[in-house]
């Protein structure tokens, strides 16, 4: 076995040497293999919403699609894209045109070659407004994609085809694909490893129907490292190694069983009783015990948990009040006494783990912290200055959160901190727990809240995925913040490919956001998984996507 491991390692290393210039593929087997290379996991949902990659929008679905399909690139656990179907690529000097050379040995499970035409057709299918892809906006980086996708399928049906033809995706030949972007985006290459950018098998989709083809195991024609062999709906999905995959020699797992379970208590019991080897589900109440028993794998996660202040509702229409309430939160206590799993108190908005302009630097480190945690002296002074020296004059405040034990505990703690720290009578700070759908409507649609709990996980590895949320017209701007300087800085950053200018602008924008304290950042997330010690080389990146392509089971 050790010999095989060594051979594999040599193969991997030599391959990366030839393909220098691109990110290195993760090394893999480093120990004895178990006889049974079956990975047993659960998905955390009772059923994937869809396994048509163009229609997906959730992480659980992405993770299954990443087993079954392969885009131009794959993403390693350091968020670096490396070669998938594309063998190499070049970028034009203006950073707008990408030319991809596809490998000639990439095949579909039925033996058809994977060509540039497959990518063109699949991407345009996702962009076509008639397809109704909920994640189509991930395609808006490509020139003309937004214009085509935002056409009204009822009123502008005739305009759709010409608009799609004008999208910047060009098939040079069967194995060369040229993509023109609307504006430079250094992180776009990484997006080609995302399901929205996966190729689908045209003949299958057309034969079975765009809405119907992806519902039964027997129908799938895919191009990834694993192929689906069974799908018992709402119960179990089984995958087997795809022997036609171009890099099948580097795929060690023979089989993956995916239990479709969404109850966190059940997920944990299945994992602890040996029914599964890998899960992300556990009840929050078990965290202390699991940590003590050393069962948690704690990974960095590009996300921030925060409270949104509605800047159009008193008293939070006053920046001083927002600052006071934010400074009066004791983030250290929330992280150490409630969450207890290595979360980091957030003293800014953009979480650590995003590279800055110069190589090896980190956006957060460069930007630094913006305020002191639990700064009660400053908070009280701000509230005095805001005209609330007499605390009884403060209007009643309501904290909105969705029904969940963790959010409730945090809201209760913050209620206590505000009441004690700012000397506000406790009955003036109320808690409002709403069911998920109702809460979403209050927070994002009707904006019927004063302070609302929220969380954000980056879509890609760049500060922009956090900062553009609060631009005046952004759909995620729940606080209804409007600041022209902020918008201008970010718009300029969006237009340039000069990383130094971009990062500089984004640092300035973040400072404005935090100075205005539109939101109160609370903590940076961590990603917690439970994996048995013999499960190796699962690539989990910091935006939560998990790739099992190089996973293996060690002898145990």
């Amino acid at each position: 076995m050790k010999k095989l491991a060594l051979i594999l390692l040599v193969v991997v290393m030599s391959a990366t040497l030839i393909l220098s210039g691109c990110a290195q593929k993760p090394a893999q087997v480093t120990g004895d293999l178990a006889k049974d290379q079956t990975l047993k996991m659960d998905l955390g949902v009772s059923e994937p919403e869809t396994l048509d990659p163009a229609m997906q929008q959730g992480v659980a679905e992405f993770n299954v699609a990443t087993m079954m399909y392969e885009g131009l690139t794959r993403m390693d656990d350091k968020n670096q894209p490396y070669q998938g179907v594309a063998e190499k690529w070049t970028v034009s000097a203006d950073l707008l045109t990408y030319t991809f050379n596809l490998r000639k040995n990439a095949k579909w499970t039925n033996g058809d070659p994977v060509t540039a035409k497959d990518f063109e057709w699949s991407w345009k299918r996702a962009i076509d407004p008639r397809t109704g892809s909920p994640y189509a906006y991930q395609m808006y980086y490509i020139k003309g994609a937004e214009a085509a996708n935002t056409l009204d399928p009822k009123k502008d049906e005739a305009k759709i085809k010409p608009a799609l033809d004008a999208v910047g995706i060009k098939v040079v030949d069967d194995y060369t694909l040229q993509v023109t972007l609307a504006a430079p985006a250094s992180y776009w290459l990484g997006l080609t490893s995302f399901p929205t950018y996966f190729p689908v098998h045209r003949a299958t989709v057309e034969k079975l129907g765009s809405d119907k083809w992806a519902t039964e195991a027997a129908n799938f024609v895919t191009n990834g490292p694993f192929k689906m062999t069974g799908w018992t709906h709402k119960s179990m999905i089984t995958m087997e190694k795809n022997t036609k995959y171009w890099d099948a020699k580097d795929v060690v797992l023979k089989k993956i069983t995916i239990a479709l379970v969404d109850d966190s208590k059940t997920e944990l019991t299945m994992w602890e009783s040996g029914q599964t080897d890998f899960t992300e589900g556990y009840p929050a109440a078990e965290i202390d015990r699991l940590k003590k028993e050393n069962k948690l794998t704690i990974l960095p996660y590009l996300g921030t948990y925060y409270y949104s202040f509605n800047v159009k509702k008193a008293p939070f229409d006053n920046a001083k009040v927002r600052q006071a309430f934010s400074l009066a939160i004791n983030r250290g206590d929330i992280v150490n006494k409630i969450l207890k799993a290595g979360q980091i108190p957030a003293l800014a908005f953009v979480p650590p783990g995003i590279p800055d302009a110069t190589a090896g630097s980190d956006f957060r480190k460069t930007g630094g912290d913006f305020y002191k945690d639990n700064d009660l002296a400053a908070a009280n002074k701000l509230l005095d200055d805001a005209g609330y020296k007499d605390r009884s004059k403060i209007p009643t405040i309501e904290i909105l959160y969705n029904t969940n034990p963790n959010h409730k505990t945090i809201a209760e703690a913050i209620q206590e901190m505000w009441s004690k720290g700012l000397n506000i009578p406790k009955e003036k700070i109320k808690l409002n727990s709403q069911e998920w759908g109702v809460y979403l409507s209050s927070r994002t649609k009707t904006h019927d809240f004063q302070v609302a709990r929220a969380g954000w996980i980056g879509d890609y590895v760049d500060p922009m995925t956090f900062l553009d949320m609060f631009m005046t017209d952004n759909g995620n701007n729940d606080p209804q913040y409007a600041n022209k300087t902020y918008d201008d800085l970010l718009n300029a950053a969006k237009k340039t490919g000069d990383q130094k200018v971009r990062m500089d602008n984004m640092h300035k924008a973040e400072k404005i956001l935090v100075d205005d304290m539109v939101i109160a950042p609370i903590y940076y997330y961590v990603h917690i998984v439970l994996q048995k010690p013999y499960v190796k080389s699962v690539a989990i990146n910091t935006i939560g996507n998990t790739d099992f392509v190089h996973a293996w089971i060690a002898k145990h």
Partner: protein
Amino acid sequence: MARYILQRFFSALIALWVLITITFIMMHAVPGGPFATEKAVPEAILRNLEQKYGLDQPLPKQYIRYLGNVIRLDLGPSYKFKGQTVNDFIRREFPVSAEIGILSIILSLLVGIPAGVISAFRQNKWQDNAAMFVAIIGVSVPSFIVAPLLMYVLALKLHWLPAAMWGMTWKQAVMPVISLALLPLATFARLMRSSTLDVISQDYIKTARSKGLSELQVVWRHVMKNAIMPVVTYLGPLIAGILTGTFVIEQIFAIPGLGREYVWSVTNRDYTVLLGLTIFYGAFLLMMNLLVDIVYGFLDPRIQLTGHKE
């Protein structure tokens, strides 16, 4: 008889129509929608989705179209699970829920009825006290406590049974069936005990005994047939309730049944699934009640099934 059934059938149709209408109105009155997500989706994409599923139409139009589809027994597509229909869900998930339901009803009848009869005949003796003690626990401890408890002991500590999932081995059925059977079992035992006590004090039982029939014959021929009526009454709605799935058991044991589907359709705002399963559940309940009334007629000749008062 035929006339009675026909009359009941038509009143059931009207009840169903009222059910659909009320559910439709209430469902759309709840904030949120099937395509709401935490990450804002551009307006144009939301419009594309709504057009695709006809949700851009005014509500009365959607309502009329829905009724038309229901008449053709087409309950529509799920908005959440792309490419799958409500009819698919019922076809796949009802048999699973029904299987667990039937097994637990059989278990609860097999244990509950004899336990009740024995209790009655040994009134206030230790057998009675023991059976009723267990029955009280069965009635008062909810399944969401029993199920995790069973799971903890039998799966996590003893490793006798798999913790969850369905349909791969018979072992997976043990815990869900026991958890589900406990409440009806206890109820049957209590109902049977009190009705048996009622019956054995009747004159005709004394007559039967004085005719020299053995105790077993008395129980079988005279007591059981008359004491079973309350059980039959309870059985109708119970079958409808238990066969269409129970959220708690299916959720805890990760069973692909209708009960879990029904509750999740509310959280997901999956309008068609919510409406479709409401109709299915309503129709099933009405049918079971009708069946119980017909069975009554056979068991008790004093009850007449007629379409009008005579």
